[in-house]
């Protein structure tokens, strides 16, 4: 029985190094086939008829003219007359045709009548939410009334962060193909192993009849776990049409119905002692995630990280006639972080304290990781030159370009999910790892290969990684919540150690030692302490004869290979033009811990990516809804603006590995934590620059100018 642990740092040949992602060459050359790139024999294209109203009753629907359009192979109605539609762009009917243009021609022939119903699509002004504001949830901890009485300074403020879209570049959708009662789905998903069961029940076929295949996915960010109504409907339509069917959402639907991050607005009151010690918190939050309400859990995320001892909290979920929320990287954390860190920084400004000193003074309130936060903040401060550049709120230097600094801290769990890895060592020396997982662009394939290769003492090229198929490969959890790297790496390590153990048993006699005396390193199986006594990897595997070694490694399992819980600090240096209102990042620093790092290169890429996505929701991204029509005004990529290459300023990523105990913690996921802090850090920097708080993200020129004229609020 091997000992399930990571190799000692000094013995690692791959783990912790910078390895280029294995699928990089395929991606840069256009060879990488995403599901949306596939063409199956006789394949048709699907398009949906969508409801133009935010809230309506379907009165009548006649698709007969659409069925007669040449090139149309099948039409399906998806709602019955009388059905109530709860958001615009909900699916009403679907057409399968020879190409998308013909399908759109057919949609225009459909006769449909609706009865419009009253709608609510904007929630920033809670007083207008009426019956769509749900009953508040409340939570009390400590004695906030007494604490506020004893507070020497109080601050009250309003803050908000609107709904944003996932806007994955590869839209949601799939290719589906039937063969008798067997279905193959080629989805764009974060959940390869969990896909088949979602199709089985609505299609009334056994899960075992469904194969799932996906080589690459063009972004998910939390929005691609489900089969989705359009997946099921496409499978039904493909059956009716008798042909494979490709249905990927058009961009407008992608942005509006295929995923969004709920909004969060707040009225916050904070109490502190004159020396900066935080004593009391009160918050009333509200927000929407569409038909299911929204806002923030009063027991979990707010106040964020800084756990003020006495707190009164209230949340009001507002249902709106808008597309439904989906998990968006670190669900609820970016919103809670923005609201909390903004209010706390405002308190620091009111106390006339340096924000860094204020956070460090209260660092004990962050709990078990307080020392880590302190060190990460000080490291970030060093990297951004905080002590030299920070000034009290409001840059008083002459001219209209004002510079400012802001900070934030965050947290996430990131424990590895349930996962099984099938490890094979063949007699010819080739090896493989099969996992029904997916690589979202985080570098999952590469991490699996590095762990197996490290274990076998082989180069990365010595391991073939097979992912993206189910049930062909063993089950892995969905890629969400930063759980993948811990799941796949620990399952692979355990399985690879077991496989190696079996190989040792086979070759030990020929080296005249006990199996326990062997080790794999440098492409050889050798005797520990006597590396001249060895077999090459291929000489060793040749002894397997006709039976390859195939073992299963699982997570969870024995040994401490993974962990959960990280901190992280970010600081932004911005310039704000007080004439135009434009905010520019000069420099943006992230200091991030994540336990033991497997691939330094792709780990850093995760943090860079999170910062850039964070700049997007800080400065540009928001869903803009029209009260009158109930439609999103910017469900396209010209007006739903993503961060561009010119918008980032200088980015500095510092992976926190100063403490040896970080490495000893094992593997912890990294996808979520660095995306939490950007709006908080950037918003605080803007306030520090211009002397007033811009309460509502994103910090657009209009809002900056309004704040400067003391007109800023949550509804403009």
């Amino acid at each position, binding site marked *: 029985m091997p000992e399930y642990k990571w190799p000692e740092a000094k013995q690692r040949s791959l783990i912790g190094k910078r390895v280029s*992602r294995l699928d*990089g*060459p395929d*991606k*840069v*050359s*256009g060879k990488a*086939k*995403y599901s*949306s*790139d596939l*063409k199956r024999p006789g394949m048709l294209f699907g398009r949906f*008829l*969508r409801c*133009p109203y935010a809230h309506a009753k379907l*009165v009548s629907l006649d698709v007969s003219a659409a069925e007669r359009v040449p090139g149309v192979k099948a039409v399906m109605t998806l709602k019955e007359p009388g059905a109530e539609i709860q958001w615009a*762009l909900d699916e*009403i009917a679907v057409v399968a045709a020879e190409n*998308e*243009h013909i399908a759109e*021609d057919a*949609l*225009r022939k*459909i*006769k*449909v*009548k*609706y*009865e*419009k*119903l009253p709608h609510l699509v904007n929630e920033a002004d809670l007083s207008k939410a009426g019956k769509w504001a749900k009953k508040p949830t409340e939570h009390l901890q400590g004695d906030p009334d007494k604490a506020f009485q004893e507070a020497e300074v109080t601050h009250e403020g309003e803050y908000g962060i609107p709904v944003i879209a996932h806007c*994955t*570049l*590869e*839209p949601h959708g799939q290719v589906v193909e039937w063969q008798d009662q067997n279905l193959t789905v080629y989805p764009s998903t974060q959940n390869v192993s969990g896909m088949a069961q979602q199709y089985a029940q609505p299609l009334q076929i056994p899960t075992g009849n469904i194969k799932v295949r996906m080589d*690459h996915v*063009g*972004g*998910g960010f939390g929005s691609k776990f489900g089969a989705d109504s359009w997946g099921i409907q496409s499978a039904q339509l493909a059956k009716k049409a008798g042909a494979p069917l490709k249905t990927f959402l*058009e*961009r*407008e639907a992608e942005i509006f119905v295929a995923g969004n991050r709920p909004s969060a607005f707040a009225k916050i009151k904070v109490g502190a002692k004159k020396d900066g010690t935080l004593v009391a918190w009160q918050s009333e939050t509200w927000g929407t995630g569409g038909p299911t309400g929204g806002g923030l859990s009063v027991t979990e995320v707010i106040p964020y990280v800084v756990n003020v001892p006495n707190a009164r909290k209230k949340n009001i979920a507002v249902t709106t006639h808008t597309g439904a929320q989906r998990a968006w990287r670190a669900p609820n954390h970016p919103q809670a972080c923005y609201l909390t860190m903004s209010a706390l920084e405002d308190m620091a400004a009111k106390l006339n304290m340096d924000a860094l000193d204020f956070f460090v003074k209260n660092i004990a309130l962050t709990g078990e990781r307080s020392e880590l936060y302190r060190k990460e903040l000080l490291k970030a401060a060093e990297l951004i030159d905080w002590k030299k550049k920070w000034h009290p709120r409001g840059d008083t230097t002459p001219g209209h370009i004002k510079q400012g600094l802001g900070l934030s801290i965050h947290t996430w769990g990131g424990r590895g999910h349930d996962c099984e890895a099938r490890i094979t060592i063949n007699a010819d020396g080739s090896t493989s790892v099969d996992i029904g997982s997916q690589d979202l*662009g*985080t570098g999952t394939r590469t991490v699996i290969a590095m762990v197996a290769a490290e274990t076998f003492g082989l180069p990365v090229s010595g391991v073939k990684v097979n992912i993206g198929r189910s049930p062909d490969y063993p089950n892995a959890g969905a890629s969400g919540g930063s759980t993948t790297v811990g799941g796949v790496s620990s399952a692979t390590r355990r399985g690879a150690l077991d496989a190696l153990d079996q190989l040792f048993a086979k070759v030990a006699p020929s080296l005249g030692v006990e199996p326990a005396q062997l080790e794999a390193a440098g492409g050889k199986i050798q005797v520990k302490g006597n590396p001249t006594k060895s077999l090459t990897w291929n000489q060793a595997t040749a002894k397997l004869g006709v039976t390859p070694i195939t073992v299963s490694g699982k997570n969870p399992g024995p040994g401490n290979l993974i962990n959960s819980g990280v901190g992280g600090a970010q600081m932004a240096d911005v310039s704000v033009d007080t004439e135009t209102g434009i905010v520019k990042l000069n420099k943006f620093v992230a200091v991030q811990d994540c336990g033991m790092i497997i691939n330094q*290169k792709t780990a*850093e*890429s995760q943090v*860079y*990516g999170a910062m*850039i*996505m964070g700049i997007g929701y800080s400065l540009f991204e928001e869903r803009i809804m029209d009260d009158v029509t109930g439609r999103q005004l910017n469900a*396209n*990529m*010209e007006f739903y603006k*993503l*961060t*561009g*290459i*010119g918008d*980032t300023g200088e980015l500095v990523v510092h992976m926190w590995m100063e403490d040896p105990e970080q490495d000893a913690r094992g593997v912890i996921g990294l996808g979520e934590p660095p995306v939490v802090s950007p709006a908080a850090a950037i918003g605080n920097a803007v306030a520090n620059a211009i002397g007033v708080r811009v309460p509502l993200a994103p910090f657009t020129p209009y809002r900056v100018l309004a704040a400067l004229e003391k007109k800023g609020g949550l509804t403009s």
Partner: protein
Amino acid sequence: MAKPDDQEAGSSAQVSRRGFIKGAGAVLSSGIVATTEVLEAAQTPAGAKLLGPGKVPITLRVNGVAKSLNLEPRITLLEALRDELELTGAKKVCDRSVCGACTVLINGKAAYACALLAVEAQGKEITTVEGLTKQDQLHPMQQAFVDNDAQQCGYCTPGFVVAAKAFLDTHPNPTTEQIRKGLGGNLCRCGTYAGITRAVLQAAKQQKGGQSHA
């Protein structure tokens, strides 16, 4: 309560710029595109040739090879590349000239393949990301993207690689600031710009070192 509203389904879709062009009939150097609905209404200028609405034979020169196709004139170059020629490196993302995921070279210059009808692309040299790789040897720009991890999900990557190649052709000694402006026509959602900037600098350095690649 509002009265039942007669709603022609088509009005639920916003009119896209390209949809408008297709619907209205486009006057091209070689002719006009018409769809069934507008055929009667279209005012055909004297001497212009009307293409469609049915399939028409066209020839595209893609990656140095002439390809004969039979397709509706309203099919975009991007759709022809992806659906007819199975050159799927160029991606359909915004489908309206914003994001650059469909970037190809037309006569050596970067262009959005979603913004050009296939019939309009006849007689031009079209190079896709697949055409940059010669005998399985990555173009130096492609290799630089790999080396600098200038990609995550990879969906924007082919468009960025092509745009970066075209940019470097006209800016052999780029500054970081020039790269940030020059590649402003492409968008990435995962946030790979730091790697992309480094990749372009690496490719530029390599090109100056005399290792340029066609």
